C-alpha cells in the first residue's frame, strides 16, 4: 500500500518539501511520515501540518490536491515512484537520479533541473527551464527522461549534457540553448533562438521554425535514430504519428559559434501536411 498525502490546507507561501521522496519514507507509518520536517517560508514545519497522510511507505508516494506551492518534490530521489494527482510547484525532481515521477496536472518552473536519471512525466503543461541548469550553472540534465504532454516555457534543456526531453506541445524561446549533448523533441512549435550556443546534441521539431543565422542547412533525410526515439515516445503516450516517424527531416547544423556539431531536425513541410 502506498503512502497517500492529501492536501488539507494549502500553503500560502512556498513549502520546501524535498523530503517528499519515496526512499525517505520506506517502512514508515503514516504517523511517522506526518512528523517529517519541511520548511514553510522561513519557518520549520511538519508534513502533517499540511497533509492528511494514509498508508505506509512502500516505495510509492501519492500526492492528492493542489501542490502548486509545494517545491522540490522528489528532489535527489534515487528510486521509487511519485504520483501527483494535481498541479505541482517548482523544482520537481531536481537532481534526481532514479525512479519515476508522474504529474497528472501542470508543473511549475525548473522541472527536473540538473537531473541525472529516472523519468518525469507531466501530463499537463510545464513552466520555464525544464531540464535545465540552475542559474549560474553550466550543465543541465545529465541523464534520464522528461516527458511533458503539454507546452513548456522558455529555456528548456539549457546546458543539457545527456538524456531525453520530449514536449507534446509547443516550446518557448531558447530551447536547447548551450546544449552539450542529448536530445530534445518538440512535437509542436519551437520558439525563437532554439539551439543558441549548442555544442552538440539534437533538437527535433515536427513544425517549421525560424532558426538563428548561425545554423546551416545540411540535407533532408530520414534519420534512423529518430525512428527509435519517436517510437519510444509513442509508447510513452505522446501523439507521435506515422508521418512523424516515416517523414524526412531537414538537418540544420549549428551553432556555428560553437563548431556546428549540434543539429536541429525539422520535419519536411510536405510530411508535416500529411501528418
Amino acid at each position: 500500500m502506498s503512502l497517500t498525502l492529501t492536501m488539507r490546507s494549502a500553503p500560502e507561501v512556498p513549502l520546501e518539501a524535498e523530503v517528499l521522496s519515496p526512499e525517505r519514507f520506506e517502512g514508515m507509518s503514516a504517523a511517522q511520515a506526518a512528523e517529517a520536517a519541511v520548511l514553510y517560508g522561513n519557518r520549520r514545519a511538519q508534513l502533517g501540518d499540511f497533509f492528511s497522510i494514509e498508508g505506509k511507505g512502500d516505495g510509492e508516494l501519492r500526492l492528492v490536491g493542489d501542490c502548486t506551492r509545494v517545491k522540490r518534490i522528489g528532489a535527489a530521489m534515487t528510486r521509487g515512484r511519485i504520483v501527483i494527482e494535481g498541479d505541482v510547484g517548482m523544482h520537481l525532481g531536481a537532481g534526481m537520479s532514479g525512479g519515476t515521477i508522474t504529474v497528472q496536472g501542470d508543473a511549475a518552473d525548473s522541472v527536473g533541473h540538473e537531473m541525472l536519471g529516472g523519468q518525469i512525466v507531466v501530463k499537463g503543461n510545464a513552466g520555464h527551464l525544464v531540464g535545465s541548469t540552475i542559474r549560474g550553472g553550466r550543465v543541465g540534465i545529465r541523464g534520464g527522461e522528461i516527458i511533458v504532454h503539454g507546452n513548456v516555457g522558455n529555456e528548456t534543456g539549457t546546458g543539457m549534457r545527456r538524456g531525453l526531453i520530449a514536449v507534446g506541445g509547443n516550446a518557448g524561446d531558447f530551447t536547447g540553448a548551450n546544449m552539450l549533448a542529448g536530445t530534445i523533441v518538440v512535437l509542436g512549435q519551437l520558439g525563437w533562438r532554439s539551439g543558441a550556443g549548442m555544442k552538440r546534441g539534437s533538437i527535433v521539431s515536427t513544425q517549421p521554425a525560424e532558426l538563428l543565422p548561425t545554423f546551416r542547412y545540411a540535407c533532408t533525410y530520414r534519420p534512423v535514430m529518430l525512428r527509435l526515439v519517436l517510437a519510444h515516445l509513442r509508447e510513452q503516450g505522446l501523439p507521435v504519428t506515422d508521418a512523424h516517424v516515416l517523414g524526412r527531416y531537414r538537418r540544420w547544423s549549428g551553432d556555428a559559434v560553437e563548431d556546428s556539431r549540434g543539429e536541429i531536425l525539422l520535419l519536411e513541410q510536405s510530411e508535416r501536411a500529411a501528418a
Partner: protein
Amino acid sequence: MLLNGVAVEDTFAEAFAMWGARVMITAENDKWAMAAARAMTGFATSVIGCKCEAGIERIVPAGQTPDGRPGVSVLLFATSAESVGKRLVERVGQCVMTCPTTACYNALPAETTATTVVVGGLLRYFGDGFQAAKLLDGRRFWRVPAMDGEFLVEERFGVQPAIGGGNLLILGEDSAPTLAATEAAVEAMRAVPGVILPFPDGVVRCGSKVGSRYKTVIASTNDAYCPTLRAVSSATRLGEDVNCVLEIVIDGLDLSSVEEAMRRGMKAAARPGVRQISAGNYGGNLGQYKIGLHGLMNGT
C-alpha cells in the same frame, strides 16, 4: 531404431561449448536487409577455417524490429566471448555498415546475456570525429555519417554461452534422394528459433575428422563416411548400399534448440532412398555435449 523405415544409428552427436550473439540488421527494404545479412554470414561455415560460424536465423517483419523497418536476425558463434566481439566488429564493419540504408542492433535478450562486447563503440571511429552517440532507454547507439545518410549501430552487443557442432549424417543409396532428404531436413530445422545451419544452404558434404597424416593439417576428410574409400579405409562406417553421405551442422543459442532442430531434421530426412541416419562424434572425448539420436526420438 527405425524411423519411417529408415535406420537410426544408436550413436550421438558430439557438440561443443561456444559463445553466441544475435544481431538484428534492418534496412529500408527486405532486399537490403537480406543483402547485408548474406554478406555478414558469408565465409562463416566453420570456426576451423573462418574463425566463426554464422547464419541467418530468420526474417523479421518490420513491426518487430527496433526501428520499424524490415529486418533479418543473424546468429554468430565463436569459441570465446572475446572472439565473438572481434568477429562482430569485422563483419558488422565490413558487411553491414557498408550496405546501403542498414542499421544494426543487439538482439539478445538481457536475461540470457552473460556478457557484452563493444561493437558500435569501435566502429564509431570510422566517423572520424563526426560520429554522434545517442542514449535511449539505457541503450547507447552510434550514428556514423555515411554517404547515404547515417549508419546506426548499437554500442554493445550481448554474448551468451551457446552450443556448436550439433550434427546429423544422412546416409543414402544415391546422390539425388540423399540430397532431397537433406534439403527437407534443412527446411524443417530452420523453423526452430535460436539455431543456424552454417554451411551452404545448411548442408556440408566434406565432413571432417580431427587431424591428418600431414602434421600441419588440423582437420582432414572424414574417410569413415566417404563412399569412395569404403574399400581402402579401415575406418569405414558405410554399408555397401550407401553411396552418398551428407551432413547438417547445427549451432544454437541453447541445447534444447539444437536438440529440437535435430529431432525435426531426423523426422524430415527419414524418407525413401535414405538408408541410415547417424551423427558425427569423436568418441565423446572432445565435446562437452553428447546428443543421443535414440534419446531424441524417444523424448529422453
